[in-house]
Each structure stands twice: as structure tokens, then as C-alpha cells.
């Protein structure tokens, strides 16, 4: 695809988002009645959408609760299929994360209710991190002979065609693992690879659950397996702001797990190693490797690729810092990196344009879903909170003397109250997803964790749409983002 076409595709999401926002502002000034009608339609759409998605969240939560503590390994054994040849390759791309972050993640794997002689652990360090050799030596010594295999890889800096991304490191590690498996006589089609962030702690039934789904899913190589990410590692210690953002992120993933036709991999997930090798591994020059790898497989299998939700959690760290300003900035940068997933749009559409086998309907549907989700992400909070009062502010006396001018704030207020009503369900559910309160955390924190939901409108204002709009604007202007890993530290 020509550079010009690629640039056009990169411009589309940002142009649509900015176009929608500017159009609404201009309409508020020039045609306030039209703007008010659009805002009411959007508000009503948003409340219906919120209620619908909250119902999906309830369904997903119910499913998660029912499958909690399930003995998946027993289910595997009862399947009557030979699963003894299934191996799990677990890659932890590590950059600046210290051993205090990495060690609990490996410990969690060690504690898993799954034969360890079927697990191969790959610690994928970046060569440019001066502590990597030392850290690798410590980890190798600590977990020696715990698994079927454990290797440490050191991704060199500056390989042509690569950018400093997690995907480049993971790809280097996966290639090394491929060679390692060959020496051990393990067939790559019998390997399920899980690429985990360094802070990812799996539940003890994770690999049993994953194996079960791999064995029972039709065309298991044509699927990714997505657990529910929760941020429970340090949730009791994180400040309210960061905690609420991450709880909301988990809930969004739970909702997505119910929308199978739109479901895309996110963060830590698993897939067939064969498929990973066949599609040419993770992208080495894109930030959103977790979702691009899905689209690569989707294009490779001509649209016959899907994400299978695993109703089991993997727990990660809430990103926070020593003060509220730094925490907000950290969260903002993390969300902007997630929103940089908008780079999937030009990637997918260019893939669609070169493809002759995927049906046009599928291309339109998946392309629209991707574009719509990113554009909605970039504008919803701005429209609901900032632009909604504009017709009244700029409409002048004539507008306020009209029925719609009088009714607009009443209707938007009423509709938003419905949304906040739905957030009550989120508050209740958040209590159920919390891990047990650590002994050193005071009881009053339980109350704080309910009351803190009052700051949600401010969070929406800061982190609702702006990181997404920021990311889209950078893509629109061709100012490509570099991978900035979220700094993680257990104790601050």
C-alpha cells in the first residue's frame, strides 16, 4: 500500500473525531436548535447503550462468579482427549520492571494447578537495560528446575525494521523459544503461547482453563484466548483515582467478552503458538501489539479467527505514583497508549484492501466496529460533559426562550442521572471483584472504596476521551507515538 493511502487511513479516525467535535461546537453557535437535537439524540443513545452494556457486565460477572474456583484440570481429564502433549509457553516481556514485579508473577505460575513439566517459561529481557543479565541470573537461579524449561532472552536494540516496542521484544523471545522447543522435541502446534505483562499474576486454574478451551474450541488454532484482566495486585494500596480507572477498565473488558463479534485481544492473553509463528509473530514496529496480533491472525485466516473469552482473571498492577498529579499523568499516558490501538485501523483496512477472500460484509462490519469504537471513545465524554451546555451558552436569549432551550438541560440532566444510576451497579460489582483486604489496610478503606465513586465525573472529564483524542490527533498529524511502558512498582 502506498504511503499516501496509509496516511489517508491514519487521518480518518482523528478527522472524524475532531470533525464531530468542531461541527457540534459550530452548530451550537450558529444553529443551536440543531446542536441541541443532536446532543439529545446522543444523550439518549448513550443512556440506552449504558444500560445495555451494564446488563452485559452483569451477565459477564455472573459467568465469572460461576466459574470461579472451578477445577478446570479435572474437566480436561474428563474430556476423554489426550492433553498430555499440550505445552504452555509463557513469555514475560520485561523492560524496566524490577524483580519485585516479576517474581510474584512467576510464583503465581509455580502455584498453578497444572503440571509444571508442561510449562516453558521465557523471560524476555531488553538488552539495553543494564540490569537484565543480572536479573535473569537471579530468576534462573530461583526457579531452576521448576518448569519443563526456562530460558532468558535478551532482545538487542536497533534491529532494522523494529521500533522499541514490547512486540519486538516478545517476537525475539518467541523466535528463541521456537528454537528451544525444537531442541526439546516439542511440536509447535501443541504449544499454547501466553504473552503476559511482567506484573501479570495468573489464577491457579488459569492453564487448566486455557487447556480446556483449547481442546474444546473448534479450530483451536484460529482463536485467541482472552482472560479477564483485573488490577488486584495492589488495588487496596492504590489511590482512588487510579483504582477507579482500572476497575472501569476491567469492567469494559468484561463487557467486551460478551460481544464476541467485536471482541479483540487486550493486554495479557494466549493463543496457538503455531498461529503466532505462521502469522510472523507479533508486530515489531507497532505499540498496540496485543490487538494487532489478533488482526494479523484475522487477516491470515481470512476472517475466520476469533477471540474466545476465558472467564478467569489475570491480575495486574494498578498504575500509580507517589502523588496525585503523577498518578493522573501516568494513567493518562497509559490510556493514551491503549488508545493508540487506533493504529489498528489503517493496519486492518490496508489488510482488507489487499485481501480478496474475506467477504465485503465482514470487512465493512469489522472496519466499522473498529472505527466507531475509537471515534466514540474520543468524543463521548467531551460531548456529554463539555459540549452539552454549549447551545445554552452560545444560543443566546432567543434559544433559551424556546421550548428546546428550556428543556435541553432538563432532559440531559435526567438522562445522565440514569447513567449514574447504572454506575451504582458498577459500584456493587466492584465490591465483588475485590480481593480480600490485606491485614495492614484499615477497615475504613471499605467505605472509601464506595464513596470514591463520587469522583467518577471528574475522571470522565480527564480520562474519558482526551487520551483517545490525543492519540488520534498524533496519528492524524503523523506524529507517531513511541512505546512508553507504564512504570510499575509494588510499594510506593
Amino acid at each position, binding site marked *: 500500500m502506498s504511503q499516501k493511502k496509509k496516511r489517508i487511513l491514519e487521518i480518518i479516525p482523528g478527522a472524524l473525531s475532531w470533525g464531530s467535535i468542531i461541527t457540534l461546537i459550530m452548530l451550537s453557535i450558529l444553529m443551536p436548535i440543531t446542536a441541541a*437535537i443532536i446532543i*439529545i439524540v446522543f444523550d439518549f443513545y448513550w443512556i440506552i447503550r449504558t444500560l445495555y452494556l451494564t446488563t452485559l457486565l452483569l451477565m459477564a460477572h455472573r459467568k465469572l462468579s460461576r466459574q470461579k474456583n472451578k477445577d478446570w484440570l479435572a474437566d480436561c481429564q474428563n474430556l476423554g482427549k489426550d492433553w498430555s502433549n499440550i505445552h504452555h509457553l509463557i513469555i514475560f516481556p520485561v523492560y524496566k520492571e524490577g524483580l519485585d514485579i516479576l517474581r510474584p508473577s512467576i510464583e503465581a505460575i509455580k502455584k498453578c494447578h497444572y503440571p509444571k513439566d508442561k510449562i516453558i517459561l521465557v523471560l524476555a529481557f531488553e538488552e539495553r537495560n543494564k540490569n537484565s543479565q543480572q536479573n535473569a541470573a537471579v530468576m534462573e537461579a530461583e526457579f531452576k528446575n521448576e518448569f519443563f524449561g526456562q530460558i532468558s532472552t535478551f532482545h538487542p536494540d536497533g534491529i532494522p525494521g523494529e521500533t522499541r516496542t514490547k512486540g519486538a521484544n516478545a517476537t525475539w523471545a518467541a523466535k528463541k523459544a521456537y528454537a528451544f522447543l525444537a531442541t526439546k522435541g516439542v511440536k509447535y502446534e501443541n504449544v499454547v503461547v501466553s504473552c503476559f505483562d511482567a506484573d501479570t499474576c495468573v489464577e491457579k486454574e488459569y492453564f487448566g482453563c486455557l487447556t480446556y478451551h483449547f481442546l474444546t474450541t473448534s479450530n483451536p488454532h484460529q482463536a485467541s484466548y482472552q482472560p479477564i484482566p483485573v488490577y488486584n495486585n495492589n488495588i487496596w494500596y492504590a489511590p482512588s483515582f487510579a483504582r477507579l480507572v482500572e476497575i472501569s477498565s476491567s469492567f469494559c473488558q468484561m463487557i467486551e467478552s460478551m460481544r464476541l463479534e467485536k471482541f479483540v485481544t487486550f493486554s495479557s492473553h494466549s493463543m496457538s503458538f503455531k498461529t503466532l509463528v505462521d502469522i510472523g509473530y507479533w508486530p515489531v514496529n507497532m505499540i498496540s501489539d496485543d490487538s494487532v496480533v489478533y488482526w494479523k491472525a484475522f487477516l491470515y485466516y481470512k476472517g475466520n479467527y476469533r477471540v474466545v473469552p476465558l472467564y478467569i482473571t489475570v491480575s495486574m498492577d494498578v498504575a500509580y505514583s507517589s502523588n496525585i498529579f503523577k498518578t493522573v499523568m501516568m494513567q493518562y499516558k497509559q490510556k493514551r497508549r491503549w488508545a493508540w490501538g487506533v493504529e489498528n485501523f489503517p493496519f486492518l483496512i490496508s489488510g482488507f484492501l489487499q485481501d480478496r477472500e474475506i467477504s465485503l460484509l465482514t470487512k465493512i462490519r469489522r472496519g466499522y466496529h473498529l472505527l466507531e469504537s475509537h471515534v466514540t471513545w474520543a468524543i463521548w465524554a467531551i460531548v456529554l460533559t463539555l459540549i452539552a451546555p454549549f447551545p445554552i451558552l452560545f444560543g443566546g436569549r432567543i434559544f433559551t426562550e424556546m*421550548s*428546546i432551550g*428550556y428543556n435541553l438541560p432538563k432532559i440531559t440532566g435526567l438522562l445522565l442521572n440514569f447513567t449514574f444510576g447504572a454506575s451504582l451497579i458498577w459500584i456493587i460489582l466492584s465490591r465483588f471483584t475485590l480481593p480480600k483486604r490485606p491485614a495492614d489496610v484499615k477497615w475504613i478503606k471499605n467505605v472509601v472504596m464506595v464513596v470514591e465513586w463520587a469522583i467518577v465525573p471528574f475522571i470522565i472529564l480527564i480520562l474519558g476521551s482526551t487520551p483517545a483524542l490525543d492519540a488520534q490527533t498524533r496519528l492524524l498529524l503523523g506524529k507517531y507515538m513511541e512505546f512508553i511502558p507504564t512504570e510499575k512498582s509494588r510499594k510506593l
Partner: protein
Amino acid sequence: MLSEQRIRAILFYLSVLIFFIGLPFILSFALGYKFDPRSLKFTKTGIIVLKTQPQGASVYLNGKLLNEKTPLTVNELLPGTYNIKIDLEDYYSWLADIDVERGKVARFEKIMLFPLRANVKQLNKERLSTFWADTDEKVIYYINQDDSAIYTSDFEGERYRRLANLMPIAPPAIKFKLSENKEKLLYFNKHQVAISGLGNHLKEKTPEETPFILNYPEDAIIEAFWHSDNYHLIIVTNRRIEVVEARPQAEPVEIAVLNKKNPSIFYDTNTDTLYFTDFQKAADGNFYNNLYKLEINSKSSILRDIIKIKPAEQRQLQDKD
């Protein structure tokens, strides 16, 4: 049993259905349309908004009592004139004929209901000549010229007390003015300016608190002001403008001679600036009424000559020496 995805599909289409069914009703309500189920047509209506002080009044629309009380919004009114009556017990009714236009709001948000029996309360507890209220300090000052005293109370007439005795002048004073620091009172009639301290009237007076009178037998006093230093007075008579220290036997300094006998005067206490009108002869030989500005602050050269060091400051300087 329905699969999850089937349930989700049902929920999705149900949401779509609710959206498309509900949207016309929400938009028609927002735009002021009323759906007539008999004719199956939407008619554009208007709104009346009524807010009263006090709230909770009953509203009659064309003689029919409405269920809600004020503040109240009457929606979906067909265009036309409506007779509105607002009733609240022990208050005068409010009546109006309101024109309602299509898609418009008739706002009546500042309706004040007045009580049938005015809530009048006597505040003074002594005889009274005049009074003024200090909204900053939230106190009322009462002057009783018969017994030459000033009283004070709060805005409810509570904490009523005699503040100070005044030096009597005859004929009675026409105006009273407190110094900015609220410590001294200036009052005057046509030929006399009196100054009284407002300290405890039972206490012995310091020299500065001792009441005194400045006499203007030749002039007619029009206005007098306190300078912001609480020590100088600006006195405007029918012939001149003078500045004088607020102490007995002080010598006034004439800073302007007036041609007009009844000038209009405004004194800005924030900047100590006097604005006044006067006739002045122009180059064409005619007299014209002009507005003049006279700065009477420490920056102006006039006052540098006029303003003397206050006795208290004098003492401070002496102490320093």
C-alpha cells in the same frame, strides 16, 4: 434455555427498539410538540414557567387548580392566552394573562408575593429623630436629637443600647455622618458642624473624643464629609470648599471658592476625591456650569500643605524622639 449470545442479541435489538421508539417522544417533548392520540398528530405547544417568592403557591390555569405548586413548569400548552392566578394563604394573589407561543417559553421567574398584613416591626426603643443603617457592620444607628444621643442595635432591633451623647446644636442637625473607622460622628445644620466621639458615653473622654462645634455664621453649610484619615473634614458651603481638622479651634483652609450657591457634590471616600459643579467664566465672557474634580489625598499638593500630623501620630513621633 436461551444461550448467552441469544440473550445478548435480544437485549441488543430491544435496546435498538427502545431507542427508536423513545427518541421521537423525547425529541417532540424537547421541541415542545404534543402528541394528540385522537388525531394522531403532533402539535407544537408552548411552556409557562412560574417561580414565586415565597414558593409553594397554588396555581390556577384558566380557573383550574393545578396539582403542583410553585416553582412550576406548565408544559404542552397550545398557543393562546392563559389566565394565571397564583394564590398563597395570607398573601395577595398574583394575576396575569400570559400569551403562549408555539415552541416558546413564557418565563415568569421573579414573581414576588406580598403578605396581606405587612410584617412591620418597631425597632427603636427610644424617641427617634433619624437613623441610618451600616450594612457592613450590620448595625442601625438611631439619633434622638431631643435628648442628644445616638443609639445602636442590630438589624432586628436587638442589642439596642445608647452609644454616645451628642453635643446639641440648634436648629437640629440635618445630616449625620460616621467617620470611616466608626469612631466619630459628624453632624451639621446650616451654620454649625458638630463632632462627637462614639466611645462609651459613660467613660471619661480623651481630648480627641471631646465633642466640639465649628461655627459658620457667614456661610450656609451644604455638605460635609469625613476624609478617609478619619481626622480631616471637607466642608462645602454656599461660598467655598474648606478642609479642617476635626479638633476644637482648628483653622479651616479654603481650597476652592464657589460661584454657584447650590453646587452638586459627590465625595469618593475610596480615593478622597471631591466632584462638584460650579459656574466659571469662559473666554466668551459667559458663565457656564462645569463639573470639577478635586483630589484631597496625600498625593495632592493641596493636602500636603493642609493635612497636619494627627495628635496621635504626633505623640508617636515624640515617643520615638
